[in-house]
């Protein structure tokens, strides 16, 4: 895995020292809150509803066991013994004390981790496909590209004060597991007719109060042009993007208001100039970065233990059916560990669970872990013969839930249980839906169904791209939940359509149950997913199930 060079190390260590001094000055009164707030936000420290919150970056969701162990230690030593993995592949600590934060950042810096650019109007943590380097359908591992972008964008002086936050995501496959079409810039590794590898560049995607699907800015960008081209995009956005209204300041609005053709023209103009400034050093660097992401030395061994477990143990078979994914090496599998046991908070892992996952990665999975934007943990490289032992260990620690991609594998933002911006709770809704469908023993029958819940219009829970999206709002002082249908965060990305009036906190779970019941009735077979059924029939049968009283009135 990529390791910091001396420059990176010095930069992170210096940042911790600077922040320690800033905290001291805040505490002794030399800095006011107005002066201190932008400094703490630059270091990932928010003030939430009940406490501070520290958001730590996990670049492109990649960790090794040492880093995961430190995340667990930080949770125990300075927080309440757990961490929350987010939809940006980061981890959040919900209870740090201000005076402890410099020590937390120091512990993280010592294993090459930090909280820089996890907040503020800058280029945020670059995310990537959580199956990177392992997926069978991949053209190439997107992480070296993500790392190059990370190095370029970290502390880039020209882009430190953008009109608004800015998010990059990278995928190396046609199958989009990184939601690139809902990012400010989405990058897909592609091969052209001549067999050369380059990038397809999308721009102007995003969720929030004005959801937009990204548009193609360039069908094929030669690899060596990535940084000058990205710089051109940022410069056009910095010059043209609105600063008069924060809700109109994201690049999606710039693209929408000016048109993609105009943006293309301006970016290409800037690109010609920027390209002159790049003399090829970035490509030298890229070669070094790629070496750090070399594939592991795969084990050559029989997989009979795996086949035997599948045939003899129904619980293991169920886990294998839902939580394993095809690896590029046929003797290997990608193991998704669900941190969404029915009734638990989606994305939360205790320090003990973090250590168990770290130790499993070290022992069986070439010391690699990934955090997915769907708030689960991945062991990307596991020889199949080791999976029964991994499964047994996961079961001992409440980590073997076989629900990846199913109705209880819900994305939920922290919502009003933690977040100061939230307008309603989202976690308890996820907990109740998961518990209810577990009681009904229906979730495997229902099959693939992605529910995504946000506790406010900012859409951290990606509700717009949920097959079923739930948005929690404050309606005249009462929590109210709006349902959207037919959203999709994949390569066929679509924004969900609002179903109708909202439901109260007590009505929303029964409403979801009616909706899913209608799907089971009208699908052609168990092979037709919820999303396929919705696309075939439209919203009518689902609206009828959600609002039976309206149907009666109409009749």
């Amino acid at each position, binding site marked *: 895995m990529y390791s910091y060079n001396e420059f990176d190390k010095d930069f992170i260590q210096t940042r911790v020292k600077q922040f320690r001094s800033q905290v001291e000055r805040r505490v002794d009164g030399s800095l006011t809150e107005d002066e201190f707030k932008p400094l703490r936000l630059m270091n990932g420290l928010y003030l*939430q509803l009940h*406490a501070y919150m520290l958001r730590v970056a996990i670049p492109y969701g990649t960790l090794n066991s040492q880093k995961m162990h430190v995340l667990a230690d930080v949770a125990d030593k300075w927080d309440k013994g757990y961490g929350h993995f987010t939809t940006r592949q980061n981890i959040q600590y919900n209870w740090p004390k201000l005076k402890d934060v410099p020590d937390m950042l120091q512990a993280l810096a010592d294993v090459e981790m930090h909280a820089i650019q996890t907040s503020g109007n800058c280029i945020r943590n670059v995310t990537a496909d959580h199956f990177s380097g392992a997926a069978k359908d991949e053209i190439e591992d997107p992480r070296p590209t993500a790392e190059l972008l990370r190095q370029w964008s970290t502390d880039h002086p020209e882009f430190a004060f953008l009109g608004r936050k800015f998010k990059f995501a990278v995928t190396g496959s046609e199958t989009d597991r990184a939601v690139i079409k809902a990012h400010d810039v989405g990058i897909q590794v592609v091969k052209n007719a001549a067999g050369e590898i380059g990038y397809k560049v999308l721009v102007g995607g995003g969720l929030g109060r004005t959801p937009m699907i990204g548009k193609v800015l360039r069908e094929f960008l030669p690899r060596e042009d990535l940084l000058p081209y990205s710089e051109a995009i940022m410069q056009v956005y910095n010059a043209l993007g609105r600063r008069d209204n924060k809700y109109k300041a994201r690049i999606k609005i710039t693209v929408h208001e000016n048109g993609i053709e105009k943006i293309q023209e301006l970016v290409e103009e800037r690109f010609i100039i920027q390209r002159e400034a790049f003399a090829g050093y970035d490509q030298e660097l890229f070669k070094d970065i790629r070496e750090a992401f070399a594939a592991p030395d795969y084990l050559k061994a029989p997989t009979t233990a795996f086949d035997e477990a599948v045939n003899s143990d129904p619980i293991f078979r169920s886990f294998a059916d839902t939580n394993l994914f095809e690896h590029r090496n046929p003797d290997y599998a990608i193991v998704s560990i669900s941190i969404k046991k029915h009734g638990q908070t989606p994305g939360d892992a205790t320090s003990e669970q973090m250590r168990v996952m770290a130790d499993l990665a070290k022992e069986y999975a070439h010391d690699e872990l990934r955090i997915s934007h769907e708030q689960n943990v991945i062991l990307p490289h596991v020889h199949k013969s080791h999976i029964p032992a991994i499964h047994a260990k996961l079961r001992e620690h409440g980590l073997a839930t076989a629900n990846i991609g199913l109705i209880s594998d819900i994305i939920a933002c922290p919502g009003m249980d933690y977040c100061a911006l939230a307008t309603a709770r989202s976690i308890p809704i996820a907990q109740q839906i998961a518990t209810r469908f577990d009681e009904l023993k229906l979730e495997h029958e229902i099959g693939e169904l992605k529910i995504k819940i946000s506790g406010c219009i900012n859409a951290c829970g990606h509700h717009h791209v949920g097959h079923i999206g739930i948005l929690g709002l404050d309606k005249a002082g009462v929590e109210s939940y709006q349902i959207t249908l037919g959203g999709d965060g994949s390569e066929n990305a679509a924004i969900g359509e609002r179903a109708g009036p909202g439901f109260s906190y007590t009505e929303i779970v029964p409403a979801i149950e009616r909706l899913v019941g209608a799907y089971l009735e009208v699908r052609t077979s168990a092979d037709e997913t919820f999303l396929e059924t919705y696309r075939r029939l439209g919203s009518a049968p689902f609206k009828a199930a959600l609002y039976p009283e309206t149907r009666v009135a109409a009749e």
Partner: protein
Amino acid sequence: MARAFTPKVLTANRLLEGDVIYYSANGDWVTSHDDALYLTDEVQANELLAACSKLSEYLVGAYLANAALEDGKPVPTHFREEFRTRGPSNYHHGKQAEV
């Protein structure tokens, strides 16, 4: 006609711990909403809020939150403020577990 003043409590977060706090009838800052000073006078409420600017070394983000009186104690009228009195509802931890 001026709008009628809705009673308030004065609340903030503690600078060092981030804990939710309320200005009490005794003139100190407490963690229990029950002990918050119930403010029915708009001028007094605004004066107390303005005075918080001098307490920057102790607290962050002071504001006035709507409240009502129940059994002689101030209670929040909005669910957001109700959550702030006890902590997250996803499981029993935070302030509610410490009380």
